[in-house]
């Protein structure tokens, strides 16, 4: 039985909306003066009954009675929609704000990465910033001394280490910031979406480093919108919904529950979470449809699936020939297939249009039952401009495709075949 290192008990956090004082001493004095004279507060909201009354119900519970334990060495994912309480939970865990009720008990040093590069000072050199940022994150000076060369090497900034960071390219800046963070060695590490930094290569390096940290026996809490990353790193996951824990179980089950609780609730606020920092936001929406054009996210084996995106290039008028790409990933096997119109040939397009839908119809999908994520890409003839990764998904239901009462294997690959079998008797063996 492993040790419990984080125990969250009945944690709640209330945010008061509106009236948190009036923001100025003058009006607070006015309210106070009115109250001691027994008059109506001139600054409170006037409600429908006509008399001005202090409305105490205007509050919002970002977390409500959340309790869970985390054991030593566990790598725990935390997922949920925007506003589900993930960030609030992280903020309380990392002691940025205090809970309204409830307690958290922690065993060991805790460090949180809610953002990389916190406290970087542009005038200071790379060297100074490593020390400053490292100690803000909770490292002692001699720990940084010991790790210094490793950090510089990881960030690939050896030549510029004594240059003020304001002269760094944004890539170098982010690399240095992540390198410091990646070399923290607390017993408990809290990470929020830091993977969305840098170019693709560096992201891969970061993911690798995170995996290393996770395997190194440290306790990690990882909040992300990237289901693939959660699935890769975290055996167990918590699903938060409206401030409550909706599920706390094996990651695959939780993710499935999450995706289906999300229903077909495609909203644009969500899009930004699925976009790397370099992307130009020209994809305005994306959906998965069945062959009748209905929004659906569960299909029988062999169904036709339509992946549709809506784009608008008013902000990027250079786009002459839009190229759409689709990458289909299986929830455990990873990338399954990818296709784009550069390889298949373009669809017909009127270049006078600055916006429109592009539909990619995949007839008779060859996939077995399981959960699939779709990454959509949009670019022009030369380069990719925008992508949404892990935003769209569909489920293939186990279907009796062979009409035999049996379903295809789902753990031995992702495609099904419709073979024809034939027996050819060995004539020599005929008696």
């Amino acid at each position, binding site marked *: 039985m492993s040790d419990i290192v984080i125990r969250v008990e009945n944690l709640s956090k209330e945010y008061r909306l509106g009236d948190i004082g009036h923001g100025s001493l003058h009006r607070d004095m006015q309210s106070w003066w009115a109250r001691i004279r027994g008059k109506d507060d001139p600054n409170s909201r006037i409600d429908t009954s006509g008399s001005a009354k202090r409305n105490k119900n205007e509050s919002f519970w970002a977390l409500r009675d959340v309790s869970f334990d985390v054991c030593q060495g566990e790598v725990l994912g935390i997922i949920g929609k925007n506003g589900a309480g993930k960030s609030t939970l992280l903020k309380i865990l*990392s002691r*940025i704000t205090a809970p309204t009720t409830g307690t*958290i*008990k922690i065993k060991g040093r805790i460090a949180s990465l809610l953002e990389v590069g916190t406290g970087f000072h542009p005038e*200071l050199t790379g060297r100074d910033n490593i020390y*400053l940022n490292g100690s803000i994150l909770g490292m002692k*000076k001699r720990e940084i001394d010991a790790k210094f060369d490793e950090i510089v090497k990881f960030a690939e900034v050896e030549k510029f280490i004594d240059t003020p960071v304001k002269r760094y390219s944004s890539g170098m800046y982010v690399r240095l910031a992540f390198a410091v963070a990646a070399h923290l060695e607390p017993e408990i590490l809290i990470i929020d979406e830091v993977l969305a930094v840098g170019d693709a290569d560096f992201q891969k390096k970061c993911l690798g480093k995170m995996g290393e940290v996770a395997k190194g026996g440290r306790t990690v809490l990882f909040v992300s919108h990237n289901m693939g990353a959660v699935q890769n790193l975290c055996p167990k996951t918590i699903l938060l919904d409206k401030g409550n824990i909706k599920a706390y179980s094996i990651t695959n089950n939780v993710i499935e529950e999450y995706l289906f609780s999300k229903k077909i609730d495609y909203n644009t606020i969500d899009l930004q979470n699925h976009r790397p920092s370099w992307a130009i936001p020209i994809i305005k929406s994306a959906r998965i449809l069945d062959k009748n054009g209905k929004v659906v996210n569960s299909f029988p084996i062999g169904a036709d699936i339509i992946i549709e995106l809506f784009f608008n290039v008013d902000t990027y008028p250079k786009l002459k020939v839009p190229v759409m790409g689709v990458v289909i990933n299986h929830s455990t096997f990873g990338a399954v297939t990818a296709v784009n119109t550069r390889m298949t040939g373009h669809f017909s397009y009127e270049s006078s249009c600055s916006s429109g839908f592009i539909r990619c119809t995949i007839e008779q999908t060859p996939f077995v039952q399981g959960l699939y994520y779709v990454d959509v890409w949009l670019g022009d003839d030369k380069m990719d401009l925008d992508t949404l990764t892990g935003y769209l998904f569909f489920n293939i239901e186990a279907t009796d495709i062979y009409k035999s009462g049996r379903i295809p294997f789902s753990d031995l690959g992702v495609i099904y075949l419709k073979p024809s079998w034939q027996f050819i008797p060995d004539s020599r063996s005929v008696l």
Partner: protein
Amino acid sequence: MNTEDKEKNWTTIISPRSGWLNINLRELWWYRDLIMLFVRRDFVSQYKQTILGPLWFLIQPLMSTLVFTVIFGTIAQIPTDGLPQVMFYMAGITSWTYFANCFTKTSNTFIGNAAIFGKVYFPRLAVPVSIVISNLITFAIQFGLFIVFLLYFYFKGSSIQPNMWILLTPLLLVQMAALGLGVGILVSSMTTKYRDLSHAVGFGVQLWMYVTPVVYPLSQIPEKWRWLSALNPMTAIVESFRYAFLGAGAIQPWVMGVSIGMTTLFLILGIILFSKVEKTFIDTV
């Protein structure tokens, strides 16, 4: 099994509210590297890409002394207890500047650092403490300048008599640091709710200087109003500083007592409010 034992092993317990005087000095000590790095950052970044660099530390008191000597000494002809005007004003400015810097800069702790405080935890008190320390460097440089002038006037045979009270200078510094920190974090805690206070700070410091005997000696205040002046903790500090190095002034022990009392009061009030605000201020900023 032995849950009792395990309960005791928690290193951190996060709970909604804490006691009144909840400053964790051990934790602050643990973060001493960070405090020193903040000091370094403030010092290095302050004068980077300025032409004169750290020379500004000297230009500020020199110019102020010059202006005060001309305006208050020559034009307004305010008496200086028989001391050379330059030395009189410089003593006042050197000690006042340290306090004023501590106060002004710590009063911006929460608002100015909201971005960092919103992302990572470290004892919030590390920031104002580092400010008080980095201003000590400024003070040391300006104090050096003051000593150079002091020696010059002394050997020129002016009527200044440095005396044993000089040994109290470190205590005066500690008191100024404590007062600047106390008032600064008090104001800083209140600015999280009342933004308009931050506008008042710059102006308030200026007014405060005029009620402190910086440009006039305490002896110019009529006897019956001395008690009022004594309520200002800076009165005793500036006057003692001047008395120690120049040998003239009207400082009385009870005034020093009141000053120490007021300093302690401000510091405790500041810490109480600070530790109350630091836990959730990020929700309201």
